[in-house]
């Protein structure tokens, strides 16, 4: 490599700058597909299973044990949380300083918010009939996810993350208003689908 030589001309200098900046950003930023697609898949599959077992007006489209949908959904969400947590932690290992600290605090916010909400819902859910209990569980956690995405958009100054959060919040509210069964369908298709699309859009918008 011609190490100490000046670049041939200003245009080449600009090309070097752009190429090096894009290469660096792509290496130190977490891949948005790895952050969002696991969640998109978890919601799409998990809530579809819910819809098939707990349809509108207590309809059962596919017969399965009553505990199975929750187990499937929680397992998928656990896997998604693990993947995005590892991806986020790996990204913050590349660069130390303010961004890494923000990342740690933001990650902990998710963990604490979900633990707290799950604690409340566990106490509440037992007292309610299946349909309503599912709606309260899914509605609260989806709403929390929407709010945390909006907050994340504010923290990282990331518009697509903010809009995804706003979209999830609206989809969730619409689903809750439509009622048990419909909520699962709406969140599976629009929520899960929205996350898959958001991951793709954020990835396409990375500098290259």
């Amino acid at each position, binding site marked *: *490599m*011609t*190490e*100490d*030589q*000046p*670049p041939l001309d*200003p*245009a080449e*200098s*600009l090309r*070097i*700058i*752009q190429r*090096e*900046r894009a*290469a*660096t*950003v792509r*290496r*130190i930023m977490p891949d948005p597909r790895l952050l969002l697609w696991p969640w998109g898949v978890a919601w799409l599959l998990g809530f579809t299973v819910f819809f098939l077992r707990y349809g509108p007006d207590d309809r059962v489209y596919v017969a399965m044990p009553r505990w199975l949908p929750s187990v499937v959904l929680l397992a998928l969400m656990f896997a998604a949380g693990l993947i995005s947590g590892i991806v986020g932690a790996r990204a913050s290992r*590349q*660069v*130390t*300083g*303010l*961004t*890494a600290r923000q990342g740690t605090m933001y990650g902990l916010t998710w963990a604490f918010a979900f633990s707290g909400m799950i604690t409340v819902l566990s106490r509440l859910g037992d007292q309610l009939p299946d349909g309503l209990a599912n709606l309260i569980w899914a509605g609260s956690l989806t709403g929390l996810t929407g709010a945390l995405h909006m907050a994340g958009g504010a923290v990282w100054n990331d518009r697509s993350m903010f809009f995804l959060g706003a979209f999830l919040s609206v989809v969730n509210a619409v689903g809750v208003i439509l009622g048990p069964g419909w909520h699962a369908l709406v969140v599976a298709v629009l929520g899960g689908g929205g996350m898959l699309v958001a991951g793709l859009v954020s990835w396409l918008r990375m*500098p290259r």
Partner: protein
Amino acid sequence: MSDALPELDPVIHAQARLRVVSSLSTLREGDSISFPRLQDILRMTAGNLSVHLRKLEDAGYVEVVKTHQGRTPATLVHLTRRGRLAFDDYTAALQALLTPRTDPPSGAAKPPRTEEPT
């Protein structure tokens, strides 16, 4: 617009150092990158990167901090405020060189679009 052509900063205007500074310019203020990570991104040998970092350090553009992360020693690199300024000036100078000089003053008001260094 009628000024003489801008001088290009000789410290940055060398391919290897331009690459180093460009890469470091993507970090936010308050962030540092580890030496091996930077070396990996730039695909330079350790010795080569050290030489260029020293020149940038001598110019006050880069700060190299040796520290410990847990028990393992770590070398962290970041642009100084002065280095960031020098990079911005360098980029502006390049753009001035590339802007056609025959442009009327009003036409020169809008520089070519680039990524904003944050």
